[in-house]
């Protein structure tokens, strides 16, 4: 087993889930209706649970405690998440006039979940047994996440004028950074050679295949053009949005790291 490569991949998977679920948690109480609030809260709780398991695997490999991994890395340069998950939900902040964009939330969640489905499918064959085990568990929960976000994605894209316009704008923003979800940074060749997960190219190919029928239903041209214009999070390139998110979610932990909860 290539320990360095395993650790690197685990950080990428865990940080993606953690930051994505954090951005999702910022919707709590703000969703368009109560059923959506219940649903997205449940989904984000699951995703946070996945991050917890992945940090647990890192902890088993000597990377520190789960709490420390999630809340103790106070500098954005310590994170490996893709930039697409750290982008804010919209103008304003959770506590001061959140003018979040639900179209952006639906598009980001849908693209994220299909990318994750494809990765988890590959991880079910991973050479690293603990990762293979939790992937089987993750995929059962993803089944419901996917149903949920796909429904919104198709319905809003095929709805009236404003919905379609806003969804198209959101899709443009998300696709500009979506490539970062598949990238594995400098250690990709080691990660793939060790049989931990399929290559970036193969994952993107599966993603395009998987998403094609849905795009057809929503009259969107396939294949999707994906990019990472703002940089590669796997190489620790991040925006200031991540730094301010870290500041918010680690505030309580930083106030007393030795406290037990």
């Amino acid at each position, binding site marked *: 087993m290539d320990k360095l490569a395993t650790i690197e991949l685990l950080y990428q998977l865990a940080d993606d889930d953690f930051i994505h679920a954090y951005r999702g948690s910022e919707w709590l109480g703000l969703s368009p209706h109560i*059923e959506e609030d219940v649903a997205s809260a449940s*989904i984000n709780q699951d995703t946070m649970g996945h991050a917890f398991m992945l940090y647990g695997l890192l902890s088993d490999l000597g990377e520190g405690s789960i709490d420390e991994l999630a809340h103790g890395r106070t500098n954005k340069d310590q994170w490996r998440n893709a930039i697409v998950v750290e982008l804010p939900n919209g103008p304003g902040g959770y506590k001061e006039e959140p003018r979040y964009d639900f179209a952006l939330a639906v598009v980001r969640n849908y693209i994220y979940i299909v990318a994750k489905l494809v990765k988890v499918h590959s991880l079910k064959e991973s050479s690293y047994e603990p990762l293979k085990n939790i992937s089987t568990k993750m995929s059962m*929960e993803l089944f419901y996440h996917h*149903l949920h976000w796909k429904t919104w994605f198709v319905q809003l894209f095929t709805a009236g004028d404003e919905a379609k316009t806003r969804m198209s704008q959101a899709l443009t923003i998300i696709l500009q950074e979506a490539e970062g979800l598949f990238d594995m940074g400098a250690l990709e060749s080691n990660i793939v050679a060790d049989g931990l997960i399929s290559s970036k190219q193969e994952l993107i190919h599966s993603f395009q295949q998987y998403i094609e029928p849905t795009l057809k239903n929503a009259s969107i041209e396939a294949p999707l053009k994906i990019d990472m214009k703002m940089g590669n999070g796997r190489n620790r390139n991040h925006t200031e949005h991540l730094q301010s998110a870290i500041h918010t979610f680690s505030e309580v932990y930083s106030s007393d790291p030795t406290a037990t909860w």
Partner: protein
Amino acid sequence: MDSIILALQNVKDPEIDSISIVELGMLHHIHLEKGELTVELLPTFMGCPALDIIEKNVVNELSNVSGVHTVHVHFVHSTPWTSNRITLRGRESLKEFGIAPPPHFIEGETKWEVDCPYCGSLYTTMENLFGPTACRSILYCKSCRNPFEAMKPISTLM
């Protein structure tokens, strides 16, 4: 061993107090050696906040069993929990709480037949795939006009 299982029947799901963790199918393996007891449990959902409470309750219940000195609880991920693990008695316990037991999962099928836990009618509709906890959905019975919850089917085929 029987006294251990009996004690575990007292550990209920913190969010559905009519069903024990044994009836839920969470018990994977028990190992007792020289007073040292190891209980392996299968978590239902990975982000379930009830897991810590369950762990504490297992330790509390089993510490009183004779012949047991120390209790270790491990959550195991090598075997996934599925909703088919809920026992027949467990399915009845869920109904007592007003929750319909999970329907059987059929591959490729995303619409399930769930009968109302109050009147038994099949004339029900899905209101929200997601409910108050990760493992439940919200439904409505058009016969007795009660809203109710159902456990989600969870399968390795997913």
